[in-house]
């Protein structure tokens, strides 16, 4: 136990900011900006601090805080940080303040927006750091509330419906999670991820769940899977995603895709991998098929979109699916393929991180175009932006090519690792995945060509301003990171290598 509860600070500082804003109803706009950015930025500062004190050679949890909470239910307040959590805390620290800047620009009622945004940020951080189901689920579920209102109140014309669909579908998944963990609690008396992982490693968890008999253990697995699959999303649980991403205001979409979709991926690694390795292995075939379906169909659907925001939404489905492809392929590994497991898992995490950067940058670029176009954001509404706004074109171009997986940019690292693992683990999936990569390249290049090249037409025909200072402040850091992590990928792979080795070693091989 540390003297200072660092992780609690990480989680609750954004909430403290929200509380202050709530208590200050007459806050002037300038104060709202300063206050909310300071509290949103606290994550990055504390994350960097944690990074400097973090021992990357360990696979266990660090900075652990654990105090009893609800004795009668065996629930602890339990926070801890490992390489994966740290990576995602850093990602939140980077994306959240930038998304907040993007949100606060050009809206009325900034105080309420900042308040909800800080609540959402705290929830995401809580999910990445909580190690007991009860606090974890509080953060997981509570995150829906600010997300719902951010989408509904500040979103586009169809936002009400999109927000409702988003929350109801997510709740359906959550009901599965809740039922599954009720069963686990009934069988073991605990819902603590660490304790359950230990029970699983000892073989005890499987035995206890088997006492329910019949197909119940499989149902429990499917319940957890459903909750996580909706959030990530895993094809075909993605129906909520395109309308939500398209209708939400730019800054919120940045956060949804950059951070919240990672909550699902995180859950796969934190809960399913250690607790249900046997079920994951048994179902890895169909699951891999679904994830591959998401990658391919996501890319094909993106090709068909004329709305740039919807195109990027499907592109997100495509990219996040690669994380899951790697995970499921690794889960189904057999003896002799063990060497391929590590790069696949590392690739999944790196891909999650990189997608967070590039997708939020791209959604921001579309937001910039949309603001110039007075709400128009069709693929054919622009043309020749390269001439009109060279800086925007440069930065957006880097983000596009990073998303496409160009070597030298960060996107390449994740995809390379994923495919390096995949070719050994499941050659057919690797081949199919390569085709999907081609489709990805195709729609991203279409985006690039239609919007940035050609003659100035449509919106671009009139006056078209390049990035202003605020927009540069959002986009430049993201793009710099893309280049940096493309050149020095060791900065992030170093954090997760011991963890990945540990995961690979715990695999039940058949």
């Amino acid at each position: 136990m540390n003297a200072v509860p660092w992780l609690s600070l990480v989680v609750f500082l954004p909430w403290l900011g929200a509380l202050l804003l709530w208590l200050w109803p007459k806050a002037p706009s300038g104060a709202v900006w300063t206050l909310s950015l300071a509290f949103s930025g606290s994550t990055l500062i504390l994350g960097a601090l944690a990074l400097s004190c973090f021992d990357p050679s360990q696979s266990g949890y660090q900075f652990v805080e654990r105090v009893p909470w609800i004795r009668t239910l065996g629930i602890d307040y339990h926070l801890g940080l490992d390489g994966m959590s740290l990576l995602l805390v850093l990602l939140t620290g980077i994306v959240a303040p930038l998304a907040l800047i993007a949100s606060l620009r050009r809206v009325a009622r900034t105080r309420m927006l900042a308040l909800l945004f800080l609540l959402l940020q705290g929830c995401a951080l809580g999910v990445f750091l909580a190690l007991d189901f009860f606090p974890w689920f509080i953060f997981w579920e509570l995150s829906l509330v600010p997300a719902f209102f951010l989408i509904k109140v500040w979103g586009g014309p169809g936002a009400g419906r999109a927000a409702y669909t988003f929350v109801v579908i997510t709740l359906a998944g959550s009901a599965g999670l809740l039922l599954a963990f009720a069963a686990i609690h009934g069988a073991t008396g605990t819902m603590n991820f660490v304790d359950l992982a230990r029970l699983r490693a000892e073989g005890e968890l499987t035995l206890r769940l088997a006492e329910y008999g019949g197909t119940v253990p499989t149902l429990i697995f499917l319940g957890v899977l459903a909750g996580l699959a909706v959030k990530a999303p895993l094809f075909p649980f993605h129906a909520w995603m395109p309308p939500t991403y398209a209708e939400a205001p730019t800054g919120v979409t940045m956060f949804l895709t950059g951070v919240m979709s990672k909550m699902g991926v995180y859950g796969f690694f934190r809960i399913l991998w250690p607790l249900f390795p046997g079920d994951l292995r048994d179902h890895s075939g169909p699951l891999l098929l679904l994830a591959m379906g998401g990658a391919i169909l996501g890319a094909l659907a993106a090709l068909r979109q004329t709305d740039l925001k919807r195109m990027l939404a499907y592109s997100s489905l495509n990219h996040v699916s690669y994380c899951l492809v790697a995970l499921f392929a690794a889960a189904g590994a057999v003896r002799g393929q063990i060497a391929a497991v590590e790069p696949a898992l590392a690739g999944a995490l790196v891909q999650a991180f990189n997608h967070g950067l590039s997708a939020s940058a791209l959604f921001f670029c579309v937001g910039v175009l949309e603001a110039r176009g007075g709400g128009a954001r069709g693929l054919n509404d622009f043309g020749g932006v390269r001439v009109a706004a060279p800086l925007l074109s440069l930065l957006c171009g880097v983000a596009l090519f990073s998303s496409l997986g160009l070597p030298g940019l960060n996107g390449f690292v994740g995809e390379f690792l994923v495919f390096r693992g995949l070719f050994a683990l499941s050659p057919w999936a690797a081949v199919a995945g390569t085709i999907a990569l081609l489709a990805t390249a195709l729609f991203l290049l279409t985006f690039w060509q239609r919007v940035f090249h050609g003659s100035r037409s449509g919106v671009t025909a009139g006056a078209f301003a390049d990035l202003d200072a605020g927009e540069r402040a959002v986009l430049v850091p993201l793009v710099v990171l893309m280049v940096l992590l493309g050149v020095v990928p060791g900065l992030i792979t170093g954090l997760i290598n011991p963890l990945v080795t540990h995961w690979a070693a715990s695999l039940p091989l058949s």
Partner: protein
Amino acid sequence: MSLLPWIPHLTFAGALLSLAAGTRSATAARVTALGTALVGMVLVAIGAVNFAPTSGLQTLVDVPWIQEMGIRYHLAVDGISLTLVVLTSLAAVAGILFSWTVEERVGEFFAFYLLLIGGVYGVFLSADVFLLFVFYEIAIVPKYFLIAGWGSTRREYGAMKLVLYSFAGSSLVLAGVLWTYGAGGADGFSLSALAEAATRLSHIETVVVFGLVFFGFATLAGLFPLHTWAPTGHVAAPTGASMLLAGVVMKLGAYGCLRVALPLFPDGFTAWQPVLGWLAVAGIVYAGLIALVQNDFKFVIGYSSVSHMGFVMLGLATGERAAVGGAVLQMFSHGVIAGLLFAVVGRMVYERTHTRDLTELQALPLHRLIPGAAGVFVIAGLASMGLPGFSGFPAELKILVGVWRVNVWWTVWAGLGVLVAGAFTLRVMQRAFFGQAGTDAAPVAESSSLAPLSLPEKTGAALLLGSTILIGLKPDLLLDWIMPALQSPAFHFAATKGGP
């Protein structure tokens, strides 16, 4: 010496005082009623602080009453009754705060109100079934007058239906109890004497008598398909009364099932168990789906109450200790949350806009006009959806833990119920508070200056919201009372099913 046994009588006295004060001024009656409820709350708090959880009932008073029949005036408390007594005291105070604007015959209103509360306190504290029954009837009668006298939509119909259902239910209970008393040859009406007499009944008799007593009580708990009095009654009732109906009166039924039906006739319960479980899940899902398509704001909340009480009945139907404990916690949780939801609909929204029609409300940007009400409803709605961090979550979790052990399919249906609850709560929240403004300019202009929340409203909302969040974050406060109480031999029906 605990002061708990005086609470029912103090409340009855307060009823008389309110009636008297009402002849002078409305304010005097209000203050008297509030004062009575607050004194009751203080006494409950003192009793709760001094309460040491044990496995059996702790006798408070036990004196002979009608000696020829062995009826005793026997009040006792354990963790379960104390939980519900605390709930009653909270609901009583909050209900009075939200009835502050009653203007007609104020003294009478609060007299009936406190009479009902006193009866409810009495039921939760009775250890003699005859005494329990007397208090039970005292609680039923004022409901009729409250609804018929101060109600709204089809109030005579709603009041009559509710009271007929209640009387039908209580006569089933009475028949069952008398049968046990007579056929089993009991020497009194105490729970232990009746339990002993019940063992002398034949198996068939036990099954029949359990059915009579359980369904008699379950009528008031809103068990599907005996629930139909609840939505119409809730809708017809004035705000304070619908808060009490959903908040505590439905709990009387569930409490009766738990305190009388299940412990006395464990064999009957075993025979009926599959039916009870399926009826409970049917109620959860059916009422939830009905709530999803209602166009009257209050009907949505009325059906949601039935759906949530389905979880209580499901917990009882498992006959599994964790789930029964969860059911008691759910009684508390639902009492607080449903009371709050009815307060928002009836007092905060209806009295300002004079409509409960969701289509009309949709035309008003209520989140701008009365942001306080919108805020309260959003938080109460989240609590009602069973989100973690609120009292409903640990309750549902414990119930589900038990249901898994008993019947997987009940679990699946209950899970569907959780989802439906989320959907209808979200739908009504969106329609009622976050509708698009300005499509029809006239109503907006007319109501563009709605009064902000008054002090009684804020206090009442804070009291109830604070309770649900406190118990959501620290359910041990109540579970430490409830779980030891379930260790009592009286609840051995719940001990039979194993599990870690």
